[in-house]
């Protein structure tokens, strides 16, 4: 039996480094790598599950209970972001772990193009997963919260995406998860080792709040909250008592975007300057 030699779909002389092809290659890798689908499903399950538990457990007994239904229904992000971090770190860390990165960089010698393509594919897939996760959390909150005292008698409307601030909280939460992904991608590119990279990302997210709680000086406390990727980023979820929030909603998300951009920039620089 004779095997026909493998022929690529692209004629000889095609410039493989064109962005479209790079994107296609990264998409094929992401699509066919075993874990990607399950990790994205994990983002959805983790976010919706924790969000539903918090929505089911939080009660409001009077008009002054001071609860923010947006924060309550979207609390699943605390857990969902950890799965996003793993997904993002593995997007490039997995290649370093298996040595695949050498093949990738041989095929696409322009390293920043490769990283940009990875970022684009990651952004796209996280956008889809995060949107489903947030919509699921919104639905869970809408179904569960009215039974727990979040009623018009206590000054709460039924959760609805037609409500301006709540829509901002929901859209902001989707963007939050995507930005966490880009932060993870940048850090993993710079560090290469997946285990260390995910430790750094989770440390960055979870250590700031612990430190904030320990700092007694109120100005320092506020400054820490304003630069913390998680606390500042999640400020986008606030729909009540905005005055007590350390940073305004979109500015907070901007802080997280700055962290993500910084991490990607450092990752791109290190990737250019270093041997793979």
């Amino acid at each position, binding site marked *: 039996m004779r095997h026909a030699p493998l022929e690529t779909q692209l004629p000889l002389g095609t410039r493989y480094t064109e962005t479209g092809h790079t994107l296609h290659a990264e998409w094929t890798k992401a699509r066919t790598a075993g874990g990607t689908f399950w990790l994205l499903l994990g983002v959805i399950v983790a976010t919706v599950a924790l969000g539903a538990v918090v929505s089911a457990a939080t009660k409001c*007994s009077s008009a002054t209970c001071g609860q923010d239904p947006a924060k309550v229904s979207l609390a699943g992000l*605390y857990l969902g972001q950890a799965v996003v971090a793993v997904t993002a770190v593995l997007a490039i860390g997995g290649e370093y772990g298996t040595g695949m990165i050498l093949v990738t960089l041989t095929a696409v010698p322009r390293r920043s193009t490769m990283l940009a393509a990875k970022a684009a594919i990651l952004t796209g897939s996280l956008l889809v997963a995060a949107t489903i996760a947030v919509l699921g959390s919104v639905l869970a909150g809408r179904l569960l919260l009215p039974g727990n005292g979040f009623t018009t008698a206590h000054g709460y409307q039924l959760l609805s995406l037609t409500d301006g601030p709540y829509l901002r909280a929901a859209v902001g939460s989707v963007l939050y998860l995507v930005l966490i992904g880009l932060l993870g991608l940048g850090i993993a590119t710079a560090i290469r080792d997946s285990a260390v990279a995910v430790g750094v990302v989770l440390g960055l997210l*979870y250590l700031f709040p612990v430190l904030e709680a320990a700092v007694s000086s109120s100005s320092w406390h506020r400054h820490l909250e304003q630069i913390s990727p998680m606390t500042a980023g999640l400020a986008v979820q606030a729909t009540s008592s905005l005055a007590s929030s350390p940073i305004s909603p979109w500015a907070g998300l901007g802080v997280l975007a700055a962290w993500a951009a910084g991490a990607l920039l450092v990752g791109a620089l290190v990737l250019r300057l270093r041997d793979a």
Partner: protein
Amino acid sequence: MIITPYQSRFREGSYRFTDLLHAEWTKFRTVRGWIIGVVVGALVVAAFAFVTGQQGSCNVSACTGPLGPGGEQVSDSFYFVHQPLTGNGSITARVTSLTGQVPTLTQGPGMRPGLVPWAKAGIIIKASTTPGSAYAAMMVTGSHGVRMQDDFTQDVAGLPGAVSATTPRWLRLTRSGDTVTGYDSADGTHWTRVDTVTLAGLPSTAQVGLFATSPGFLQTSLGEASASGGPSTATGVFDKIDLTWSGGSWAGTDVGGGGGGPTPGFTQTASTFSITGSGDIAPSVSSSGGVTIAETLVGTFAGLIVLVVVGAMFMTAEYRRRLIATTLIAAPRRGHVLAAKAVVTGVVSFVAGLVGAGLAVLLGQRVLRDDGVYLFPADALTQVRVIVGTAAVLALSAVIALAIGVILRRGVGAVAAAVVVIVLPYLLTVTAPILPIGLNDWLLRVTPTSAFAVQQTLIQYPQVDNTYSASYGYYPLSPWAGLAVLCAWTALALGLAAYLLRRRDA
């Protein structure tokens, strides 16, 4: 020339566990990154003790509230109508009413009628009117019946039920030398002894009389994460006062400056006294200001993440580099290999934790005191428990990461899983409690985060109402019980890891 083939000093198939330990320690020690990781882990635990930058406005003596006879910080403020008693004697009084005022809170400033559960009115024998001095007292309370309390921390229940004109309460205290005995009665003829206590160093002339006080009002609703409150007052009405000595004139003193409630004082009409007071005679709890030595250990989490990464990689690197095949050929008993790895990881992390936590607690305390922060007292044994316990938390966390590393075989998954199960519950229950108090307490009993109870140094007193939540340093489990929960999780993870390691192809 005859070449002698290499011969291992071990006979085939007979190696001891210590050989395995030696092999695993050699692997650990020769990877530079892991040693750096362990050192960094120890350093960050210590370093964070200095970066919190806590500033206080007091030096050591000025910020210390009154200390009780046992050396613990106490609240000692109440309205005291008293006269001296020299030598032995007995005081009897009937309480016919206990009413009070609590802040309106949500309805704006001001007070409304109401009684906090531990509002107190009764009779007391006290060494002096100085706050913190020794005492024994019989009292009626808002909703805990008649109690006999002495020296701030002791509390014994007497007659149950609330006091009113139709159900008055008769109280009696008898001093004999250093001992004071309390009695109660519903009718003034049938008396029951509640307790006999010894007040060490009670001077021969003590202050004896009537008192009333009321601790701060605390409003906590189930299902919500926050509490609010303010000062309250209590008014006790006394009559049928009977002294076994000739008795002098009564003097009124607002001991300890009162608890902030309006109009403390007393009125006397014929033989009836009406006394209004605010404050508490009780051990101090966290809401009274100050920090615990756990404040110096914020770095535990940074160190924990570093050691979790090292622990996970110690296992997953074997899979990535396929060293696991060699390891298991050399030592086919897979359970022993896992045990040796766990021991090496645990011991190394424990030592790192011990150094880091020891430096943090010992030096951090000094920095806090120099900066004028009031530290709740913790004796040497407690400090040792906090340091050793923190090191144990770090060691167990690293071992859990190692075990998850066997289960998942991927470093990234192992690190993320270990951090999420240990740190995330802490974030959600202690740092920024978004969950209702009931669920919070439940999580702090079952999740690995329960182990941080080992850092608590404050004691919960049933006779003091307070927000006893983890954010204020009170865990639902005792220190060692909390650590035991983490031990159970570690055992579970190791058990599953051993099972999978045996069953699966390497």
